[in-house]
């Protein structure tokens, strides 16, 4: 494919372009004109801008041009065979015990033998994204790539260019998916690979669903995982959306959530991250209908030289919507946590009620928390607020607990759990809440070991 190559200067930047040339004819939907054009268009967009550097404001703290040394070739389509028992072992007892509909992607390919497709009734549709790209249904073609996408975003462009699989899901109006849908991503490749997955979820009016995305590794090899999820939420729908990122310590995890909420919708999202060497989680949420509410919260716990960046844009495009965000960062060793939270309130979005809070807990001298809240308000009758704190463990609290016989390590653990727990407690599903509180405890146990 011919493209302007002048924006691509680094080895990784050029690598993605070369890999695309090699992969283009083999990617799902290669024989479909719509899918082909979608990819080519995305690649042209990428080629025009290249990877984001720190000079791009949205990527100020996560300079991908510097941080990505090379582009890894896409993982081979035939991955290691995993059994249901393997999946249970990977998830761990708590998460495996969750009563849910599982869909499993291994190295970026949806595995039918491990996945459940029968949960949306006769009126709905659920299929693998690969299949949907080869023979795209109308509902997918109309909205795919158009649900609140960020502009000039190289990571999203690369996602569209390389996407290998994922789930394409349409939940019909009024339909309640009673059990959570759990999309599990597992990396097994034993050498460095690129994995690109994409989910498209259309949720009908007044439908109800809980969608969980989780990420695990069984190999120690590096993976560049680019994952994007589009969520088109109909009027009056109630949606819970939870992410658990526990990839190996060599992984690069670049994730984009794009969500559009209709009128009177309720969206509760939570992101939990402990994995990957380098991770970026971008969330783009737009209120497209009045009287909707959204809570997007999360916790990330980092150690060693881990780098995680949560970047959030909440777009109040219409009036009378409520948004809440609470993010907690626990940072040890040389870890670096980034939170960028932007709330935009358009001129007509009166009666907007938006509140955001980001808090960092630094457990070492070298750990760093960069927090950049941003309010852009063009309406006058609104309640908007944001806050950001960064601090260490409270010594008075430590002394109080130790004076009651609680050891220093245990007192510190209780305080860290309390700190992260304040966010985790927002999760309504009790099993998931307990699983994640347990994950915080496990993370601490490694610290104290």
């Amino acid at each position: 494919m011919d493209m302007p190559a002048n924006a691509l200067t680094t080895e990784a930047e050029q690598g993605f372009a070369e890999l695309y040339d090699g992969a283009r004819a083999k990617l799902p939907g290669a024989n479909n004109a719509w899918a082909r054009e979608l990819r080519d268009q995305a690649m042209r967009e990428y080629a025009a801008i290249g990877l984001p550097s720190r000079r791009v404001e949205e990527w100020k703290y996560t300079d991908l041009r510097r941080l990505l040394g090379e582009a890894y070739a896409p993982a081979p389509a035939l991955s290691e065979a995993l059994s249901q028992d393997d999946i249970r072992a990977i998830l761990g007892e708590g998460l495996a015990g969750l009563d849910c509909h599982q869909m499993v992607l291994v190295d970026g390919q949806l595995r039918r033998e491990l996945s459940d497709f029968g949960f949306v009734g006769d009126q709905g549709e659920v299929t693998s994204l690969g299949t949907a790209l080869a023979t795209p249904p109308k509902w997918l073609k109309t909205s795919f790539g158009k649900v609140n996408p960020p502009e000039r975003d190289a990571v999203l462009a690369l996602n569209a260019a390389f996407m290998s699989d994922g789930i394409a899901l349409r939940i019909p109006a009024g339909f309640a998916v009673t059990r959570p849908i759990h999309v599990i991503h597992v990396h097994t490749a034993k050498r460095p690979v690129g994995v690109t997955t994409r989910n498209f979820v259309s949720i009908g009016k007044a439908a109800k669903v809980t969608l969980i995305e989780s990420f695990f590794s069984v190999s120690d090899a590096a993976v560049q995982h680019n994952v994007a999820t589009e969520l088109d939420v109909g009027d009056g729908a109630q949606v819970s959306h939870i992410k658990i990122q526990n990839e190996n310590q060599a992984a690069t995890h670049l994730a984009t959530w794009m969500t559009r909420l209709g009128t009177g919708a309720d969206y509760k999202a939570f992101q939990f991250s402990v994995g990957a060497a380098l991770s970026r989680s971008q969330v783009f949420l737009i209120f497209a209908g009045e009287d909707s509410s959204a809570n997007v919260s999360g916790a990330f716990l980092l150690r060693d030289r881990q780098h995680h960046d949560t970047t959030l844009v909440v777009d109040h495009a219409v009036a009378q919507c409520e948004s809440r965000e609470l993010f907690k960062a626990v940072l040890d060793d040389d870890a670096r946590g980034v939170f960028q939270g932007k709330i935009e309130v358009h001129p007509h979005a009166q009666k907007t009620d938006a509140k955001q809070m980001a808090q960092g807990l630094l457990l070492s001298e070298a750990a760093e928390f960069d927090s950049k809240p941003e309010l852009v308000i063009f309406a006058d009758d609104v309640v908007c607020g944001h806050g950001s704190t960064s601090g260490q463990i409270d010594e008075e609290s430590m002394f109080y607990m130790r004076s009651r016989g609680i050891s220093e390590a245990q007192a510190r653990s209780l305080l860290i759990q309390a700190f992260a727990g304040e966010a985790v407690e927002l999760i309504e599903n009790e099993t998931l809440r307990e699983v994640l509180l347990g994950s915080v405890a496990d993370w601490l146990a490694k610290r104290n070991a």
Partner: protein
Amino acid sequence: MLEIKNLHAEVDGEKILKGLNITLPRGEVHAIMGPNGSGKSTLANVLAGKEDYEVTKGSITWNGADILKMSPEERAIAGVFLAFQYPVEIPGVATMTFLRTALNAVRVGRGEPELTTPDFMRLVRAKADGLQISPDMLKRPLNVGFSGGEKKRHEILQMELLEPGLCVLDETDSGLDIDALRIVSEGVNSLRNPERAMLLITHYQRLLNYIVPDQVHVLSDGKIVRSGDKSLALELEESGYAEYGEKAA
């Protein structure tokens, strides 16, 4: 027996305790009274092992053991308990989790088995009842949203649970109304026994109407300047601390 000999302590380089001596035998209750700034709270914090308080000279032994060599948690296990003047609020830590963690840590440290959940619940409920602490209060995060009186009652609850040999009460009467003072005092009095020593640190004599001390010491400028029986407290109530360095209001 608690023996404090020639204790010198400072905070941020400022000398606060300047040669304090106290001998408190088991089974006795001693009160330490003194004007503001005389070093009362410093003594309490030094006994509990707070890090910012540096002991520069002297010794503190409890039943012969040098507690200055112990961490705060080791002191708790050895039986030293400080009821704080201002208990800290810790959002996110459930009161019951805290109580259970503390009790089991102390029990294990003393070579006793941990309590099972039902046994622990029974024990806490019984003791909380006596202090008029509601089950609802125990469901809240540690000290969060507790009134001044509730915080003090909660301190006494912890004292009853951990069964210390040495109870140090730092201004426990401050911020209490008469009813709360009565409840707290009854709790403290019920813990008086021949094995237990208690040190009441207080500015006002009022508490000593409810918890009658065996001895009263007057602390002034970091030293004990006078000791006597309970009548000394009444005398101080009459005359004030003017002669011990506090300026008349």
